[in-house]
């Protein structure tokens, strides 16, 4: 899979390149820096920057100043042959780049010319093509952006609601309460005592309500979204590139902890993908740095539960067959992870009360003979987690 390209984009470049091939066959002279060059350059991009730091191989800007085209054609198609032929420059290159040979690429002269033009243009497709492609992209990207904005808006709303400052109403209520008390005992302006009583009761209720809300939110971290040491985007990985959550968080099916992938898991892809679309090489380089220095990346834990709560991912993901989205929100559209649920005990219990278990399918539940009988009789329509003890204390606290 070619990373950092959305599916739609890929499809589009495919259509365009097919179109171009037809044109080529019809014998027309190919113009430089077509979108095809951009597509072909993906293979080069793995090891080469256009400008900027050296990756596995050298950066390619100004390549024509260094070598002639004939040499480039030969070297791109089969670098090994050139090296073995005793070409001094090729041998020097090979030595300089840790003796990693460049893999052969089956490209025509015209395609290579096209790529060189693309490189000389600073990695941009010629204006005429770019415009054409851009218009096609617009509608789909717009839609996605709109979705994203809606999502962001929703989250922001929730965040605002939850963090709404109750301070002002709280102080106003206290002030009213005091005023009424003063009037009751000192000034005695209002003659009807029941007015005092009603106002006192109402203000006490409001004060109580606000205090309870504030107190209950103590220690909870809803909408916690810390800056991570690496600007890692779930949107790019899980959304655009459709990487399964369990590929990186493999512990979720077996252990209490979903786990944060070790650097070697990152490197499975990032040994090839050296440059990100949004952040360039800056963020990805941090993975290499960690490996080089032997110091693992210190991520900041977003979803925290108190020590006396035992939550098992395996129980929910493997046995309960829940989707990650249910607790973590739609991370496919979010760059930086935020805790969207409040993770309170009430929230847990609520779900345990409603969620149906795989009662009929999983042989484990065969031990519940009475319950099976009731399901058969139609006494029980669906078996929830609560019915098999999902709300007992010692299911989570021990």
């Amino acid at each position, binding site marked *: 899979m070619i990373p950092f390209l959305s599916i739609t984009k890929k499809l589009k470049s495919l259509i365009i390149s097919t179109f171009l091939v037809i044109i080529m066959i019809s014998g027309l002279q190919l113009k430089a820096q077509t979108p095809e060059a951009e597509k072909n350059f993906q293979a080069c991009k793995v090891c080469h920057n256009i400008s900027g730091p050296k990756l596995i191989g050298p950066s390619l800007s100004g390549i024509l100043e260094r070598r002639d085209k004939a040499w480039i054609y030969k070297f791109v198609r089969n670098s090994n042959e050139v090296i073995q032929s005793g070409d001094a420059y090729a041998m020097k290159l090979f030595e300089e780049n840790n003796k990693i040979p460049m893999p052969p690429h089956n490209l025509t002269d015209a395609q290579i010319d096209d790529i060189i033009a693309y490189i000389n243009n600073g990695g941009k497709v010629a204006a005429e093509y770019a415009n054409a492609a851009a218009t096609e992209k617009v509608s789909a990207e717009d839609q996605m952006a709109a979705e994203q904005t809606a999502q962001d808006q929703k989250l922001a709303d929730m965040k605002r609601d939850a963090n709404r400052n109750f301070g002002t109403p709280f102080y106003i209520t206290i002030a009213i309460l005091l005023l009424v008390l003063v009037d009751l005992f000192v000034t005695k302006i209002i003659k009807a005592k029941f007015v005092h009583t009603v106002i006192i009761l109402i203000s006490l209720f409001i004060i109580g309500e606000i205090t309870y809300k504030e107190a209950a939110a*103590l*220690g909870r*971290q809803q909408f*916690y979204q*810390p800056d991570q040491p690496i600007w890692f985007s779930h949107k790019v990985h899980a959304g655009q590139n459709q990487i399964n959550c369990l590929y990186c968080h*493999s*512990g979720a*099916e*077996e*252990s*209490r*902890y979903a*786990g*944060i*992938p*070790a*650097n*070697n*898991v990152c490197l499975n892809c990032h040994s090839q993908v050296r440059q990100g679309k949004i952040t360039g090489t800056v963020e990805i380089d941090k993975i290499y740095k*960690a*490996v080089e220095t*032997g*110091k*693992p*990346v*210190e*991520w*900041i*834990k977003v979803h*925290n539960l*108190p*020590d*006396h709560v*035992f939550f*098992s991912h*395996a*129980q929910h993901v*493997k*046995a309960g067959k829940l989707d990650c989205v249910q607790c973590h929100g739609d991370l496919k559209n979010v760059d930086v992870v935020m805790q969207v649920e409040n993770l309170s005990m009430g929230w847990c219990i609520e779900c345990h009360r409603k969620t149906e278990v795989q009662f009929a*399918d*999983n*042989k*484990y*539940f*065969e*031990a*519940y*003979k*009475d*319950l099976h009988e009731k399901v058969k009789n139609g006494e029980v329509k669906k078996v929830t987690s609560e019915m*098999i*003890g999902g709300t*007992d*204390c*010692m*299911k989570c*606290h*021990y």
Partner: protein
Amino acid sequence: MEKKYFKSLEELTIDFQAENSNRPVGDKQSLLEMQKEVKSSDASRRDFLKLFGFTVASAAIVSSCQQPVRKAIPFLIQPENIIPGIANYYASSFFDGIDYCSILVKVRDGRPIKIEGNKLSSVTSGGTNARTQASVLGLYDNARYRNPKSSGSDTSWEDVDNHIASKLSSIKSKGGKVVVVSPTIISPSTQAAINEFLTAYPGSTHIQYDTLSSSAILKANEKTFGKAFIPSYQFDKAELIVSINADFLGTWLSPIEYSKQFMKNRRLTEGQRKMSRLISFEGGVSLTGSNADKRIQIRPSEEKLVIANLYNELKKLAGQTGFDVAAASVDVKELATELWSKKGNSLVVSGNDDTDAQLMVNGINQLLENYGSSIITDVHLNIRKGIDDQMDALVVEMNAGKVDGIILYDVNPAYDYPQKDQFINGLKKVGLSISTSGLADESAILATYICPDNHYLESWNDSEIKTGFYSLTQPAIRPIFTTRQAQVSLLKWAGKNVDFRQYVQNYWDSILFAKSTGYLTATAFWNEKLHDGIFESGEKVNLPQAFVYTAVDQALSNVKSSTKTDSIELSLYVNTSVGTGKHANNPWLQELPDPVSKVTWDNYLAVSPALAEQLGLEDEQLVKVNNLITIPVVLQPGQEKNTVSIALGYGRENAGIPANGVGQNAFVLMNLSGGEKRYWLNDISIEKVAGEFKIARTQTHHSMEGRAIIRETTLEEYLTDPSSGNEAHKEILPHLTSLYEQRKVDGLNWAMSIDLNACTGCNACVVACSAENNVPVVGKDQVLMRRDMHWIRIDRYYSGDVNNPEFLRQPVMCQHCDNAPCENVCPVAATTHSNEGLNQMAYNRCIGTRYCNNNCPYKVRRFNYFDFTGADTFQGNKKDEVEMTTDLRRLVLNPDVTIRAKGVIEKCSMCVQRIQEKKLVAKSEERQLFDGEIMPACGQACPTEAIVFGNLNDEHSKVAINFVNERTYHLLEELHTLPSVGYLTKVKNTIG
């Protein structure tokens, strides 16, 4: 001047240091005392300001509600087979020079946190004992040496090696002598390493020095079979077992193995109707004696005479001419006849330290044709191979200046050698002294160089516990400190740089692979054996000669009657917790109640009530024994009248906190006569000393207050009526009615069945429970205030004559009542009933009213008077007298169990974390749980499989089958609490 504030006159006048043992708990004084503990008695203005400031500060912290930033740090490179949060188990072996056990080490996220028995081993078969269970805490001992030391100061391995190498080479060049002193080596690879060292330094020798010696058995076998060895005993092959002061269930040779064998044919479940019979002769009260069907009190000096008489009687029964032997105080004619009738199906063992006595025991077993059936002579037990007089000779040589270098490998003679002063003097005359002790000890500080050994959980090793029974030790963690395996050190000094794993593997590849069948390559063999932990080759040793009677008869004719009959004799023994003192710095073991006296944190002089009356001694009174040690008296019913006992292994001086100063070192009383260590003394003096000493006992009660808490019967009655002794159960059942409808548990209904007949009271379960459930250690002062925290306790009851009672034991933990009295009284519903029949405890809901504790008829709930494990946010709540909250010690905590803060109740959860874990496995695999899959820590540790756990709703489960057994009853069932724990009546075999 500071002012004194007081609330009442009493508070002023009462001297709180004065004794409080006579006061019932909960009276006004103890309440006052509790207050005093919490608040400073002289609260000053400054204290007030401090408190005020603290309150403001904490309020500010709480209100700012800043959550701490928690980090999640992944592996750099994820190791294969390690999933964070999932425990890995590694097969290994525990051997500390005394006990052997084949084990599995549970490693959670890189930390070994629990030891479990290895079921593949046919020696220990999955059983463990208290010390094995506790050994994991030794890994995190604060007193471990962190670096090699040279003359007391830290140095590097390179430095130490250079110094030692140059000194050794100068000794070598002048032809000097280096002695390696070690406990018995059962590891072939370690032995090979020592041998390489000895070869590199000609003239050097290796001495095996055992704190607990079996010298006498070795010498006796040498005389009768022509080879010094300890045979393999088969207690399951014997219908009648006679033990003459051999505590084979507790401390004698291989107790885990023997407990398993012994119980194999004493279990009356699964249709078995036969039971072996155990007769025990002893002076003190041992675990074996208290489990015997018949216990006969004799003084240690009489043991030999009793053995002689028994042998003589058997000779007569065999038709041989008997000798004229002085009569013993007990008549053994009847016993001889009983043994004779069980010829070939009996076993006589003795822990006596006299070669002549052991010779006659050999003679008895030979006459009874036990060799070949209950005693296997071609498979040898490899522990305790040390011959005592070798060490004695060494000490003499050291004092004569004939030893140039000494390497103390895992031994501590400066503490446990009977004449330790001579050893210490001798050590000063040795030019080069090296100790490889990993833990601080009395000998190591005297040595010039300390080259700390790894803990066994950090080491590679192998062992051959019995002929052909091999096992491997593998590291479960990288060495925590800058330590190095002693074997590697020895080889290094011998000029070889080796990887000891490779060294062990080479031995297995070259020697053991040849003995195996069914493996194509040595690597396949090694890999599988490393996984299993054990290899049993089935090889045998051939003895040079058949049984020779000459020495036996010679021994018999040597026997003289003991002259003095009224003198007081002292028996020195090791208990099941601290043992020889090697593990004295282990708080779990120190707080473990003695299975007989229930004493924690001390050793004491056990005196029979009759003798105490005669000498005018009182409980907890200080006395001076033989003018050497001052020790408190504990009245011990069952003690032979003129025999007093003291446990060895206490009184460490340089072992660290908590061991230092706990108890008295009784090794100094020991005699060395005839080349063998004497574990008893004749004619001792007991002199009253002013003062008394508080003894922390977890059970001061000895009676059942007329309630049928333990139900017992005899085999005879059981065979006619299986429900005998348990008649009350049937009587009570019809009366159990309730206004409420009995709730029915659907699906899983957890229950536990405990076979009182199988429980020996060894305490392995108590330590296993502490390790599994992060049960705090509270220290002696708190135990004195009855605040011990063990979730499972083993109650011990006496019955009959106070001077010669019978002993009964009963493990008690939370009974998980279906009508739980505790649940009804909790004002905050912190303790409720689960849908799986468990009585749940939610610590974070508990507000500490202790109503539940008060309402529990079984007294199994424990209250955290302080924060003992460092769980609290507030430092002031912490009470840690035994250094259990250091970062190092806390590494042993089980991350699957919450550590409890101050002010909450806790209790047995039936290891709910294990239940949840296995349930999840079954759910994930979409299958039903199978019986026995879930095992609480106590049941798993039990060497006799006395504890059975399972689903009561599954009628084929072991626990359901036990629950319909006629022997099953529930504790205080008349209260209609409907416990989920059932007990099977104790059956004594009186048929003889």
